[in-house]
């Protein structure tokens, strides 16, 4: 019994070592395929341009003096580098997010339940604005103080607009997930204003306020309508000497939501929060779902997206919030969507990354990524085969948990692969669960299953030869079917390394450390040789 436990422990230990050491090179190989596929994707399939953008009033956009219409463009980063765990550790750490300079930082002290915030007040000395000595303030839901006073109350799990801290804004807007209310902190006046508590049946679960963006914090390129500036000092008529047309914006604008703050909800909805009353003032938009290889769900949440970004716009013509641009990148990082929402949260425009095939047909970037860019079919098949070297049980786990993991975490997955083909097929909405499972088994993990069955046959044959018990052989067969290559390597590392001898009864190889031959069951005793009665004589 003890030896059986020892053998089981030995097998599990070896199996774990093998699965870890096998998963890491497979990860790099898959990543190389992904990176080359991303690099080869045509540049037009990585960006979206909208002109006119749709947020500028028609009377301004169609002004006869306008030479360039308003435009918005966004680019998709197909590289996987920003999603490595080690980089995430630095980017996602609150300490690194909230420290901007020696005089400008903040953090949430869990023990105190207070937001600790340092800022340097601006002073006007002889007409010059200078920063005074930094002050450290302790902010609670009930007040603000320079000391850790008890009467400040306690925050439970606050989220604060870090963009405001970055820009040295004196008013911070936040939401406490425990207290379920918004709050505004005026650092200059040292006042904390609390909004009404959200009712229990309110579906809102805010996760970001103000600057709404994913991990990449990529930039939008927006340009207002431009008018031509005539150069009065221009000399010479030669076209070669002529300077390019200079232009200037016809309107002034700010990248803010004016009297509102944008609030991103866990459901993917973007709301407007009134800065004064700290209550929701309406809908600003939602995260549009990018097109994927298989038709997946129409509404997405921040968890489903590799990256997202929201750019609010306020035109100085009326100083009112005009609307916002919302960019989303699919979980796999193969496609992007850009939507424009007006001030009432209605979608005006929406576009997706796409490219043209050689025959002039429009292809979605998610399809072009895998099949239509140079060398894409070879790399896609290589990636498909590499995914099939994963244990079949983990492929099935990827199928079952396709939507459970954060999109960013999926890019550094080692064992369960949320971005694999099998997981992508699990996310499609145009099939029933049975059909999806059937298709996944037949088309996507078929090579993995075939490999597992072939390796199981090899293991079963070898296990019979080395004399493993029926029970052990049964477990090895099950293990190899479930874990495929990993189980096979583990078996090779842990199989009894005994030199076999020929059985005198059956003639097959048998183990010398067993009392009976494991093939025919005969004992070691050899019938005594009796000398024949005849002799050979000269």
């Amino acid at each position: 019994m003890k030896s059986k436990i020892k053998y089981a422990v030995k097998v599990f230990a070896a199996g774990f070592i093998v699965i870890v050491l096998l998963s890491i090179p497979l990860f790099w190989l898959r990543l190389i395929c992904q990176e080359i596929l991303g690099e080869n994707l045509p540049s037009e399939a990585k960006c979206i341009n909208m002109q006119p953008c749709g947020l500028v009033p028609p009377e301004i956009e169609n002004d006869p003096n306008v030479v360039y219409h308003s435009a918005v463009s966004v680019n998709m980063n197909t590289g996987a580098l920003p999603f490595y765990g080690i980089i995430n550790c630095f980017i996602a750490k609150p300490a690194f997010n909230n420290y901007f300079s020696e005089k400008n930082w903040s953090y949430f002290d869990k023990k105190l339940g207070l937001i600790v915030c340092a800022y340097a007040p601006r002073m006007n000395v002889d007409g010059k604005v200078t920063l005074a000595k930094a002050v450290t303030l302790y902010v609670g839901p009930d007040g603000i103080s320079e000391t850790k006073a008890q009467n400040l109350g306690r925050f439970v799990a606050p989220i604060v607009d870090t963009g405001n801290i970055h820009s040295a804004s004196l008013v911070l807007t936040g939401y406490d997930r425990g207290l379920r209310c918004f709050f505004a902190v005026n650092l200059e006046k040292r006042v904390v204003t609390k909004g009404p508590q959200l009712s229990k049946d309110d579906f809102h679960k805010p996760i970001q306020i103000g600057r709404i963006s994913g991990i990449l914090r990529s930039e939008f390129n927006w340009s207002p309508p431009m008018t031509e500036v005539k150069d009065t000092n221009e000399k010479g008529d030669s076209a070669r000497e002529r300077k390019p047309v200079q232009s200037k914006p016809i309107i002034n604008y700010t990248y803010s939501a004016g009297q509102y703050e944008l609030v991103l909800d866990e459901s993917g909805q973007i709301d407007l929060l009134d800065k004064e009353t700290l209550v929701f003032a309406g809908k600003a938009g939602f995260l549009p779902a990018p097109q994927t290889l298989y038709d997946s769900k129409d509404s997405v949440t921040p968890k489903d997206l590799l990256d997202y970004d929201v750019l609010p716009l306020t035109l100085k013509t009326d100083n009112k919030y005009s609307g916002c641009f919302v960019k989303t990148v699919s979980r796999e990082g193969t496609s992007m969507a850009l939507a424009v929402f007006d001030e009432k949260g209605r979608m005006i425009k929406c576009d997706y990354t796409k490219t043209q095939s050689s025959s002039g047909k429009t292809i979605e970037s998610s399809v072009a990524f895998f099949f239509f860019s140079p060398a894409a079919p070879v790399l896609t098949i290589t990636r498909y085969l590499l995914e099939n070297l994963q244990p079949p049980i983990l492929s099935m786990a990827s199928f079952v948990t396709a939507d459970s993991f954060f999109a960013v975490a999926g890019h550094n997955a080692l064992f369960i692969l949320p971005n694999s083909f099998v997981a992508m097929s699990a996310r499609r909405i145009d099939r029933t669960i049975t059909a999806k499972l059937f298709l996944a088994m037949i088309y996507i993990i078929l090579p993995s299953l075939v490999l597992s069955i072939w390796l199981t046959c090899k293991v079963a044959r070898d296990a019979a030869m080395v004399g493993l018990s029926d029970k052990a052989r049964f477990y090895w067969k099950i293990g190899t079917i479930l874990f495929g290559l990993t189980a096979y390597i583990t078996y090779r590392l842990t199989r009894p390394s005994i030199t076999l001898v020929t059985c005198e009864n059956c003639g097959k190889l048998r183990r010398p450390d067993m009392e009976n031959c494991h093939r025919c069951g005969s004992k070691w005793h050899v019938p005594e040789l009796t000398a024949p009665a005849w002799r050979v004589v000269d």
Partner: protein
Amino acid sequence: MLTLIKREIEDAIVLVLGAVIFTAIVITVWVSCVYRGMSVLNIGSWPTAAFIFTIICCVMGIWQMRTDRTKKISSFLLTLPVTRRRILIARIITGFLVILLVLVPITITALVLLQRFGPPIPLYKDFFLDIFVATFLMSFACYCIGLHNGWSSGKIASTLGSLLLTLIFLPLVIIKGISPQALVIVSLFIAALLIRTWQKFMTTSL
């Protein structure tokens, strides 16, 4: 047990001294850089230093096992009232102590510098402690790879095999970062390697 540990340290005195010198160099360079104006949060050279250290740890594991095998230390010790179990435990404790000998002073220096020159945000302290735990686990895992492969019969094969496995294993921290999931994987990996080493060392003829 203490005698066995002392003997193990004496056997690996070159590596222990190397570890002390490595620690002194890292601390001196870091302190001088900080005093010359570099931010204490500038830990860009940490991955390089950690990489070198993990390779050293792997070599230490191989060294201990190879020395035992070639000089027949265990064969000799087993003539005394000592068991193989105690020999292996003493060896692992020695490796553990050498790794701590390097990482603890560096971490303490980092925390002192952070206290003195860093921003007054306590989250940085936690971050430095996370880095310490991650580096310790990765170093110990590489040391265990060395121990596991060092007991193999071929000298070149065991050395190259260990270094190859270390190079395969180290990027785990790049892929997964120093998240709790990654640390759980590394901890289980260490446990699996120790079990395999244990079984190998206990059952192989000396």
